[in-house]
């Protein structure tokens, strides 16, 4: 089943043609990895999927992005609903300077949920979903910034889960973490794919190979190749993909 489709997606930052006609079908409940050398447009592409680059000055986006068949760039779209449905986890762990509990409850309160019992319940469920509940359940009221980097990133995932997204967009979520925290998040991602559609940008090819079901290779704003992860790594069709994954450039 397809969750997100992009059709002939072009993006210009002023003169910079950063995305050059991307056509991609992102499958529901799978992990799709976006790989490619830095500056090739992975983050830019990810942000077009929940319109996080709307406010960039001089940006021009053409083509289509369909989420469950609806064009997210249509003028009738409520961006806040879109972002609730397609949540995002950023590169560096960035909890708010509030308690662990308030971090997870943040999105709920934004969306007008006031009932204490309900918030308690969702906070617990989200922290469990992000595999951090056992580590923090006794100190929900303590500052989130006192957690370790890896815990903070899982907390940020919990914060995203709390607003019940259907897709989760992650931009290099482990690049600021140590190997053990990275491993925990990778395990978590496989777990998440059971319920959510996961799109992850990574500059780490081993990571893409380990965890993703599909891989898209980007180069200079173009999508060069997209296939099942096994195929991409075992038998890439394009010479440029092969060069990249064998480490000949990038």
């Amino acid at each position, binding site marked *: 089943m397809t969750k997100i489709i992009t059709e002939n997606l072009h993006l210009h930052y002023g003169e910079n043609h950063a995305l050059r006609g991307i056509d991609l079908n992102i499958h529901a409940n799978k992990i799709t990895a976006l790989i490619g050398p830095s500056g090739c447009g992975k983050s830019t592409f990810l942000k077009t999927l*929940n319109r*996080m680059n709307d406010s960039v000055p001089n940006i021009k986006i053409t083509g289509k992005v369909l989420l469950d068949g609806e064009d997210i760039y249509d003028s009738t779209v409520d961006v*806040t*609903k*879109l*972002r*609730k449905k397609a*949540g*995002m986890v*950023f590169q*560096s762990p*960035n909890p*708010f*300077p*509030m*308690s662990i509990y*308030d971090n997870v409850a*943040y*999105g709920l*309160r*934004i*969306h007008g949920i006031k009932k204490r019992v309900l918030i308690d319940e969702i906070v617990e469920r989200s922290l469990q979903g992000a595999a951090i509940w056992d580590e923090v359940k006794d100190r929900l*009221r*303590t*500052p989130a*910034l*006192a957690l370790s980097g890896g815990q903070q990133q899982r907390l*940020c995932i919990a*914060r*995203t889960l709390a*607003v019940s997204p259907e897709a989760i967009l992650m931009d290099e979520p482990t690049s600021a973490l140590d190997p053990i925290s990275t491993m925990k998040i990778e395990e978590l991602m496989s777990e998440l794919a059971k319920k959510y559609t996961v799109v992850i940008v990574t500059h780490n090819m081993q990571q893409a190979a380990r965890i993703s079901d599909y891989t898209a290779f980007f180069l200079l704003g173009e999508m060069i190749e997209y296939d099942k992860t096994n195929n991409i790594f075992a038998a890439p069709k394009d010479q440029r993909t092969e060069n990249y994954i064998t480490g000949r450039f990038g």
Partner: protein
Amino acid sequence: MENSITRTSSITRKRKLKKPVETIMNVIFLICGLAAVVSVILISLYMVFSGAPAIAKIGPLKFLAGQIWNPEVNDFGILPLILSSVTATGLAILIAVPAALCAAIFLTHIAKKRVATVLLFLVELLAGIPSVVYGLLGAILIVPLVFKAQTALGMPMSGSLLSASIVLVIMILPTIISVSVASINTVPKQYNDVSLALGSSKMQSIMRAIIPAAKSGIVSGIVLGVGRAIGETMAVMMVAGNAPIMPELLKPARLLTVGISMEWAYSSGLHRDALYGIGLVLFVFIMIINILLSSILKKGNNTGNK
């Protein structure tokens, strides 16, 4: 065994003493630190020793709760002054804080970059203007406006508590705005992005993510502004009418600061000692407000980092 140590340079100190420069610097820092602490203690002691005798002589109750201030017949009741100070500064804070916050949000997140830069420059300029200028401004612009209200209500035209409050508001706004803007600008942009990515509106992310993260800086701005308002003398004296009566918005009022400065030059004996007494009350008043404000600050901040 062949593992004898051959050492070309040693990491131990040659002499027991640390480097002399370090020692000298340490002593200098110690002296500066002590000087600050000692002068605070000396000032406090001086205030108490010079203010307390008069209060004792007049009687603490008669002094603090007395409603009549008439030095000629030895009536030294400063309740009107205390209440006027509390009302005027309280009112000024109530108006200035929300207004300043809105202005700071406007300057940091709503106004166009160029507009914001110009406005902020002006605000910072205003923060440095001497208070007597604000007094003049108040006397020319605000007092006449209040005159109209007074005439309309059939009251005599005079300086008033209201005029004093308004002048204080205008005076402390730039301070609170510029400190708040600086503190909002230090909030990482990420907080805004995260909030938007969770589906918040721009206003929600300002009010719920950015402002709370900037809170401690904003409160310092408020403390600075409030400090300036409580201690202000000149600007207030020029617009408040300065009669030592119980505070009413449209009637003249004498604040604690004005109470001291107005009569200082010609006072003597018990009268002068009573003015020292007012000084002590003002001192305690400012202490209480600072402690209150900073405890509110600490309380609200125990869930985040500093």
